[in-house]
């Protein structure tokens, strides 16, 4: 525009064209840098620092009295509840190979237990119609039935030093550890029934962890062990970069 017509306009010692191209360049560079990348490597430490700080905030926000209640008029997911596991095929407990399924409760407790499905069903039974909050952003309403992890903790006399609980599975080593507050929330269940029917292998049979107060990936399916621990023990997704706490 102006270049051909004599001296370029000068703004504070900088030519207008230069001014515009530099400004545009800075903004485009920022955009290009932001495009479909994981961001600078050096930011990793900063992001981990932020997660540690967020953990403090999230644990401070946590209230045992905060309950998940589905919205009025909302529909159940029914058979639209996605099935998810990390094994290549649906994990099924093979009784002929591995004997009868039991849930081992161990760690920092006074009374180690191995519970069969029948034993679990004899414990105080509770049902909750609640949301499932997936990390991907969808939610699904289902009714889960089982016993509270807090009842289990009382039954096995969990020690006061047990600040964490690790939930292990037979799904190719999948596990996730929880803080004790969230694990003993009233809505955190070792669930063996979904919508009034015994769990199917697609959703974690014979028993799975289910609590609406954490994102779906924290809720270990195909349970084998509930371990009360003094320290957190990471988890399948937490170890790969997903937030460990993941409370909602």
């Amino acid at each position, binding site marked *: 525009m102006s270049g051909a017509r004599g001296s370029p*306009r000068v703004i504070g010692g900088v030519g207008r064209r230069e*001014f515009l191209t530099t*400004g545009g360049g800075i*903004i485009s560079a920022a955009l290009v840098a932001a*495009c*479909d990348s994981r*961001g600078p490597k050096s930011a990793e430490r900063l992001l981990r620092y932020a*997660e540690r700080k967020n953990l403090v905030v999230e644990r401070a926000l946590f209230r045992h009295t905060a309950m998940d209640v589905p919205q009025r008029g909302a529909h159940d997911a029914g058979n639209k509840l996605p099935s998810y596991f990390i094994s290549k095929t649906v994990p099924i407990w093979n009784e002929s190979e591995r004997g009868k399924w039991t849930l081992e409760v161990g760690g920092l407790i006074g009374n180690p237990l191995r519970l069969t499905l029948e034993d679990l069903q004899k414990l105080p039974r509770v049902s909750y119609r609640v949301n499932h909050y997936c990390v991907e952003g*969808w*939610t699904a309403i289902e009714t889960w039935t089982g016993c509270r992890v807090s009842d289990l903790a009382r039954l096995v006399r969990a020690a006061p030093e047990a600040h964490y609980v690790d939930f292990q599975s037979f799904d190719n080593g999948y596990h996730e550890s929880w803080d004790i507050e969230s694990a003993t929330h009233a809505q955190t269940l070792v669930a063996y029934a979904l919508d009034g029917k015994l769990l199917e292998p697609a959703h974690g049979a014979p028993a799975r962890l289910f609590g609406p107060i954490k994102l779906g990936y924290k809720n270990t399916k195909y349970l084998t062990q509930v371990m009360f621990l003094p320290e957190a023990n990471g988890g399948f997704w937490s170890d790969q970069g997903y937030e460990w706490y993941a409370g909602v």
Partner: protein
Amino acid sequence: MERVRHHWIIRLTHWVNVVAVIVMVGSGFQIFNAYPAFARKGELFCCYPWEHQPIPAWLTFGGWLAGARNWHFAMMWVLVVNGLIYLGFVYLHGEWRDLVPRRGDLRDSVQMLSFYALRRSDHPRQGKHNALQKTAYFLMPVVGVLLVLTGLAIWKPVQLAPLTSLFGGFVWARYWHFVATMALVALSVVHVFMVFTVDPYSIRSMITGRYDESMSPEARNARPFRNLRPQSDRVSRNRAGTPQPPAAT
């Protein structure tokens, strides 16, 4: 006449906000793409025609869902703290007077639009900002507050359930978070477009703070892509055939 137009706190918070918003929007798009829909499982969603169509990957940031979430939940603090510093300063220092809507803004906005649409030949009189600008700069923090509140609502739908209910529950809160993002993106795109096509001189005022009023869009009678050069200069060239320095003011 040159004078300091933007206090250094305004300039600093503006550029911090640029970085924070770009990262928040990019990582937000990446997070959205993990489930680019709003329907609860087993339901349909009434009010989004593009269910299950992801946002183009080149607009996303964070690389994958966990990476984007980590960026989102780290940068949110920068956005909020920076936003509070900006709002606090604007309130205490009196700049809010240049931004809050007043009676007559609607009429002035219509005048600005008719000027941009070439229906009016002279630039409407204005204060620090024209009426359209003022509206945009007022709406941005409003949308920002909405973004933060809806963001908290979908971050903690159980622990902050009353807030989530206020936005109509988790699904709707997530929807409003998305709609507010799109509104902020639209306002920002128009803002950047207008800066480059109407008032590129204002970029310097957002860096050094200094702004030459004789270069203002009102003084230049500037529309998008028109009259980018100062008015007085063009007039003098037309009369005498030689460029002259701008009139001293």
